[in-house]
């Protein structure tokens, strides 16, 4: 039975609804009837649905090429990218923000390799550092942009760090603090403050915008000549370097209590839409309410998104450089794959596709930035099968991974085929140590770092690298761009990638060959040379999704 024009019109309508997921049950029954009875309708249906798959294929191919061409330095492309992804990216950013911040409120940050310094309990006047115990925590640094610290020599908290009471100041940038009782404070540098307790702070210099929910009513800010006590509000305060202050109430009400230079008590209640000026002598004068003076949470989120896009853009450039570097043996950036793709593309030019991996079981997921791909390993059989047979006397292994959990089985990153000289495995063991194990013929030698993963690192992207120098007999481990351990090799002379699996164990001693990593990988590379700390630090800094390093630490962003 051939289809009439009217039949084709009806089928077209039904199939349009089907592919756009707007088909009703009645229409679905109608379509089913067509498909059951008419061979022509079935052929029409199959060709139509298959065209959707082909369109997806050409769309990714064509738009990917357009983006690559435009990426030749054009800011328009970045703008287009940001514009088209903005709504999704904003949501993802918010999701990431919640993901990163909520579970870590009672944990210290610890993104630097060495253990955090212990604080004493009576350290109100000591420089503020990341909190070390739950008892001392007064706030969490939930977001930061471009912070430059007053004291570059000290260790400083990162986004996600829990904070003790004490001084907190920076010369440039923005920071969002969430106090444990619920108030949120956004600070714009230069700023000098002291965190007093979980619902109070002192502002000596700089700009503060506070949002105080009902549960945190009573949040107070000490000023040079008095104190602002919140009565359930959004308000902003700016203190200049001579000690005068302006207080703006955007919503709700605050109470000001202070004394002037002659010792007279100064009190005022300021409501939404009103502002006051307090000079350096403590004298109060009403002010007109300005607009747009203080950055709010939305501004900070918007700037964070811009930063994320800039970082993604910088990483893309570096990624292309790594792909074309002739020292790169294997390089997966996990980007630009279809969500159903079962091939992990090797980006290097030298392998001409022979380095592509076969994805078994894993799901494609979100990587370090909104819009970047990653592979998630969750089921025991999840893995990527490699088809590279190189044996290397010198090598550097690099990966960005995010572990969801770390149990007694540890987490495999890459394991080659076992039971021959040069077989190797790279993993995180159950103690959180980065381990390279190499079969040197008669025995499997293990080279372990110090403990790199504590619970606070779970759920966060971490950069791992290990360099292997079989000629000079050294092995070094790096975490987040910093050398973490260095050890003399014993017998191992080379490592072989033969029949490697990413994210899954093989039958090495003390490993269950039926288990996979529980987490995600969004970049993986093997270089056939030994990279030093400076090289690896660059990979980390350009690839870092967060403002984890300050300009004082950075070798790339001074």
């Amino acid at each position: 039975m051939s289809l009439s024009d009217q039949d084709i019109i009806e089928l077209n309508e039904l199939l349009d609804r089907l592919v756009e997921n707007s088909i009703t049950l009645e229409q679905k029954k109608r379509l089913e009837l067509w498909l059951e009875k008419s061979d022509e309708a079935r052929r029409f249906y199959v060709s139509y649905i298959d065209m959707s798959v082909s369109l997806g294929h050409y769309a990714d191919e064509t738009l990917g090429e357009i983006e690559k061409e435009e990426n030749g330095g054009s800011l328009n492309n970045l703008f287009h990218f940001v514009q088209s992804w903005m709504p999704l990216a904003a949501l993802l950013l918010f999701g990431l923000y919640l993901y990163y911040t909520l579970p870590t409120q009672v944990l210290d940050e610890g993104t630097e390799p060495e253990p955090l310094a212990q604080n004493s309990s009576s350290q109100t006047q000591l420089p503020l550092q990341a909190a070390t115990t739950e008892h001392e925590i007064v706030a969490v640094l939930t977001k930061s942009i471009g912070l430059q610290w007053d004291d570059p020599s000290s260790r400083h908290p990162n986004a996600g760090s829990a904070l003790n009471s004490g001084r907190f100041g920076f010369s440039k940038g923005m920071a969002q603090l969430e106090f444990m009782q619920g108030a949120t404070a956004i600070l714009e540098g230069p700023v000098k403050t002291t965190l007093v307790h979980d619902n109070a702070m002192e502002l000596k210099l700089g700009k503060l915008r506070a949002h105080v929910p009902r549960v945190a009513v009573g949040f107070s800010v000490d000023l040079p000549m008095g104190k602002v006590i919140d009565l359930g509000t959004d308000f902003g305060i700016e203190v200049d370097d001579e000690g005068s202050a302006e207080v703006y109430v955007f919503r709700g009400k605050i109470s000001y209590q202070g004394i002037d230079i002659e010792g007279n008590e100064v009190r005022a209640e300021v409501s939404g839409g009103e502002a006051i000026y307090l000079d350096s002598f403590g004298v109060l004068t009403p002010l007109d309410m300005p607009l747009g003076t203080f950055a709010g949470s939305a501004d900070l989120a918007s700037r964070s998104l811009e930063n994320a896009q800039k970082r993604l853009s910088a990483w893309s450039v570096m990624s292309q450089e790594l792909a074309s570097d002739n020292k790169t043996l294997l390089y997966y950036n996990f980007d630009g794959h279809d969500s159903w793709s079962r091939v992990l593309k090797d980006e290097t030019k030298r392998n001409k596709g022979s380095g592509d991996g076969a994805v078994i079981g894993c799901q494609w997921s979100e990587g370090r930035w909104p819009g970047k791909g990653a592979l998630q390993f969750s089921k025991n059989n999840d893995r990527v099968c490699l088809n590279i047979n190189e044996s290397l006397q010198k090598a550097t292994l690099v990966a960005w991974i995010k572990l969801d959990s770390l149990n007694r089985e540890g987490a495999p990153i890459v394991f080659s085929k076992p039971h021959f000289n040069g077989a190797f495995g790279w993993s995180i063991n159950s103690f959180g140590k980065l381990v390279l194990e190499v079969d040197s013929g008669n025995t499997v030698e293990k080279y372990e770092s110090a403990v790199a993963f504590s619970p606070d690192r779970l759920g966060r992207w971490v950069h791992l690298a290990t360099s292997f120098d079989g000629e000079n007999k050294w092995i070094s481990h790096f975490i987040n761009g910093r050398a973490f351990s260095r050890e003399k090799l014993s017998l191992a002379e080379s490592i072989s990638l033969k029949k490697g699996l990413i994210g899954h164990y093989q039958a090495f001693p003390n490993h269950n060959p039926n288990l996979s990593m529980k987490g995600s990988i969004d970049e993986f590379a093997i270089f056939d040379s030994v990279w030093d700390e400076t090289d690896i630090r660059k990979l980390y800094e350009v690839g870092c999704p967060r403002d984890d390093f300050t300009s004082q630490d950075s070798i790339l962003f001074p």
Partner: protein
Amino acid sequence: MTISQDDRSAELVQLMMKYQRKLFGYIITLVPSRADAEDILQETSLTICEKFTDYESGTNFYSWACQIAFWKVRAARKKFATSKVIFNEDVLEVISQTRVEMEEELDERHHALSHCLKKLNERDRRMVLVRYESGHNVKAAAQACGRTIQGAYKALNRIRKTLHDCVSLEVSMESP
């Protein structure tokens, strides 16, 4: 024995790479919901890996893989029983048969589509490519092309029809 196993692993990797797009096409024809089809492709890949020792080298891998995919779709029918886009078993059977019969033609149609896309005007081409880019939907296409969502739906219906007709014509002209 060891060498033979290695060769089999390499063969599996190559076959999976070669046929993954077609296999996905087969699955989505039976389960025309992209998300569900992706899930079934995952499960199918895993089973192919586990049962690869049953596969005889040199025989039709795609046909063998489609059989596994078909089992997975049938099993998933129970899971998706309430879904409005899953067909009854009789219909699944006949669609699967038709799909297998059309494989050669579908390859030709896939190539012809690239020519037909070039024949579209710039605005329509952009609209349809944005719509079908991974993770995008009609709303994204509407935004990218400055149309209302309703307008984008209508435009996409028209473009798909144009492309389908164009591909059919190209394929029929190439046929002997």
